[in-house]
């Protein structure tokens, strides 16, 4: 009996499941929103600056079994975000918007971050902790339900490790901004172990022993804001 709604729905669900399995996704792939093209273009320079790091790391992912990010809404309404690879920030933003969280995310080279002031910053209790993924790749954090209120935006500026886009980042700056958010203007990121912070060549300055949080310490706090 394959002729009613329930049967058609299970067929559609199984097809979607098969599609995701084939694509190596275990989570929602994230719809692309064409209305976001403009903003994506305006931020293209930031993405391009990080391209060297991104291409360097493709091989580290071998087989591409993991998607760049996963956004999961937990039963209590909190939103868990896992970033495995620092690319496709616009898609991640769209995915977060679907989960009810407005976000502006920029990935930058290791020696850069966004300007200090992006808008009216909201001071909230430090409930969001960023951790390195338990497998040592990327980062994860959880946004408690209601943490990002109406008219507020979660703003993330992630300085990608020169070793590659799958490593935990050199620095992650997380803010909550009320009202409009200024676009990211890349500025030098002061690195504690590297005084030559003025370099903006974006090609990885080669300080392989920089202060990246790149070893597999579970739950190591990565927030440096």
């Amino acid at each position, binding site marked *: 009996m394959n002729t009613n709604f329930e049967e*058609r*729905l*299970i067929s*559609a*669900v*199984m097809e979607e499941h098969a599609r995701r399995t084939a694509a190596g996704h275990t989570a929602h792939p994230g719809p692309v929103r064409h209305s976001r093209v403009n903003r994506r273009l305006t931020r293209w320079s930031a993405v391009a600056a990080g391209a060297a790091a991104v291409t360097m790391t493709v091989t580290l992912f071998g087989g591409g079994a993991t998607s760049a990010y996963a956004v999961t*809404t*937990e*039963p209590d*309404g909190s939103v868990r975000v896992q970033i495995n690879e620092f690319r496709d920030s616009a898609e991640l933003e769209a995915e977060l918007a679907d989960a009810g969280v407005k976000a502006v995310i920029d990935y930058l080279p290791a020696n850069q971050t966004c300007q200090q002031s992006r808008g009216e910053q909201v001071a909230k209790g430090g409930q969001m902790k960023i951790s390195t993924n338990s497998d040592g790749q990327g980062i994860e954090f959880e946004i408690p339900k209601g943490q990002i209120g109406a008219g507020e935006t979660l703003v993330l500026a992630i300085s990608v490790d020169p070793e590659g886009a799958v490593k935990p980042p050199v620095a992650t700056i997380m803010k909550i901004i009320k009202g409009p958010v200024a676009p990211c203007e890349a500025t030098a990121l002061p690195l504690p172990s590297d005084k030559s912070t003025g370099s903006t060549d974006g090609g990885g300055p080669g300080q392989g022993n920089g202060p990246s949080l790149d070893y597999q310490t579970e739950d190591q706090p990565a927030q440096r804001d």
Partner: protein
Amino acid sequence: MRLNEDPSALEAFYRRHVDAVMRFVVRRVSDPHLAADLTADVFLAVLDSAHTYAPGRGSEVAWLYGIARNVVSGHHRKSALEARTTSLIAGRRLMDDDDLVRMEERIDAERQMRDAQKALAGLPEGERAVLELVAIDQLSVTEAAAALGIRKVTARVRLHRARRALENAASPTTAYMGAQT
């Protein structure tokens, strides 16, 4: 074994719960097309969250209702247009005329529950959530707590408060409470 690794487990899970999910949905919306969309969205969300499903760790109904709740309340936050364009499976397109009639029958059968639910609208969100799952969806307090990701004792306290608030508010403010959606 995880739900997203075994298609037969996923199918069995669907068959066990599709009725309950449709009931859950029609207790909250009265439009048959929207009910079909939301039913589809719940099972898509199950795929999204399948990695958080741990058999034997609490009730699977609680896990599923936690997801269903997020989908339905997420829908209320979005415009209908947005909800349609972002869903991967348009449930309404999977319905033929017979399905539409059956869905309307389901919706009629749950009218009382929808009315009861409207009466809860004035409660604070946390309390309403617990009371809804217990009184409308017939979960145990333990299951409701699991569905909401809160401690059992918290659920008990909220349930108690919600019931007391409803008793106190018995008639004079019912109209006001019912006015919210």
